[in-house]
């Protein structure tokens, strides 16, 4: 019996890995639909108890108000960063680059319902899905910049892989010469690594990195991704060692915006 179960598990993994993910996707979709109201019901019961033990009489409303303010602050930071990006690009004859701006793209606002359901995958679950226009690969922004990308889309929910996840890779550009680089996630809670920055590239702490929107890119152009926290050039190395932090506050993701933009197939 044990051998059978092991073989069945391996068969399921193999089918899922070889493109049979439609079956697992349907199962996950069904589970999500069945379990979402149960989870919400239990959450509704447990949240007030948790708030009570937090010791503040009005903790719930204050927490909600704080979350909304954080979201507003994040949007303002994002707008500010986008404006800076816009001005920089205009100075560099942006008209020739055919920029696409987030402002011209439609978004769907979603509420975060789960955070990091696995210890090994940095992700959030949101309450909007294919019925709302959400599709695989769409960028998700909020609280100051890029949050991640939709990796599972169900009818009324979706899973977003966060920028910090180990599988996340984002093509970015920065600086006066629009230097190209790749921002890699290093795991939940860890800073981001910026790869392929040539030695001697002019850089400063706080430098904002934007999605580059190159042909075939997985994100549209001009979304603020991260800011540089440290950089160094090791003699003889083929690239600089650059560390960055996400522009978005990934600890305050009560609400996020899904950008209705799909990567080119």
């Amino acid at each position, binding site marked *: *019996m*044990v051998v059978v*179960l*092991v073989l*069945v*598990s*391996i*068969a*399921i*993994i193999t089918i*899922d*890995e070889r493109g049979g*993910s439609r079956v*697992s996707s349907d*199962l*996950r979709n069904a*589970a*999500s639909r069945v*379990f979402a109201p*149960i*989870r919400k019901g*239990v*959450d509704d019961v*447990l949240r007030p108890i*948790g708030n009570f033990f937090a010791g503040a009489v009005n903790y719930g409303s204050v927490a909600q108000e704080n979350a909304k303010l954080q979201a507003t602050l994040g949007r303002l930071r994002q707008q500010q960063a986008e404006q800076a990006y816009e001005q920089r690009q205009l100075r560099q004859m942006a008209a020739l680059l055919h920029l696409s701006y987030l402002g011209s793209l439609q978004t769907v606002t979603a509420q975060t319902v*789960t*955070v*990091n*359901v*696995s*210890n*090994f*995958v940095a*992700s959030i679950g949101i309450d909007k899905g294919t019925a709302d226009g959400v599709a695989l690969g769409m960028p998700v922004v909020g609280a100051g910049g890029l949050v991640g990308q939709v*990796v*599972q889309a169900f009818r009324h929910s979706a*899973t977003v*892989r966060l920028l910090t*996840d*180990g*599988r996340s890779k984002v093509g970015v550009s920065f600086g006066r010469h629009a230097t190209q680089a790749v921002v890699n*996630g*290093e*795991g*939940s*809670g860890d800073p981001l690594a910026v790869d392929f920055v040539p030695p001697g590239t002019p850089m400063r702490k706080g430098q904002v990195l934007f999605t580059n929107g190159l042909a075939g890119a997985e994100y549209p152009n001009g979304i603020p991704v991260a800011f540089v926290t440290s950089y160094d050039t090791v003699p003889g190395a083929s690239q600089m060692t650059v560390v960055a932090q996400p522009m978005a506050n990934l600890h305050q993701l009560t609400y996020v915006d899904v950008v209705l933009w799909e990567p080119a197939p």
Partner: protein
Amino acid sequence: MTGGDVARTGLVVLLFLLVQQTIALNIVVAGAHPDVLLLLPIVTGLGAGPARGAAMGFAAGIVADLFVPAPFGLSALVGTLVGFAVGSLVNYSSRSPWWVVPGVALTASAAAVMLYAVLGAVLGEEQFLRADLAAIVLVVGVANALLSLPALRLVIWSFGVNRERGTLAAVGRR
């Protein structure tokens, strides 16, 4: 197993899933949260033997896989192996010292987390090995050790064990 046993076992799995999705996910220590579904095959292997431990591991793993954006079936494979290994390697009876259950839960949880990371990396999820494994092992292991005794009681109840008939291990082999 009777129909009642199956219904009770399903209820226990559902209860653990609820606890995982609503409470455990909100308890984050050093960036890691408990994984109580992993506890099910461990206590089932202890209380009801390797075959039932493996079956419970498969069932709980498939349920866990439904909610995690990772290779589908990976948790089921790890659960099956862990449930079988605990049931085979640990000779538990109702006369065993009290600390055996939490001790096994701690050790087996740590092994399961490592196994999950390694198998995930083999399947192309190399970032699983870059996760803070020490923190995950510690948080999952300690949480499961703390919950192991009540979890074992639930498993005993779910399998319809009549404790007057003898040790749990004997029941597991009937």
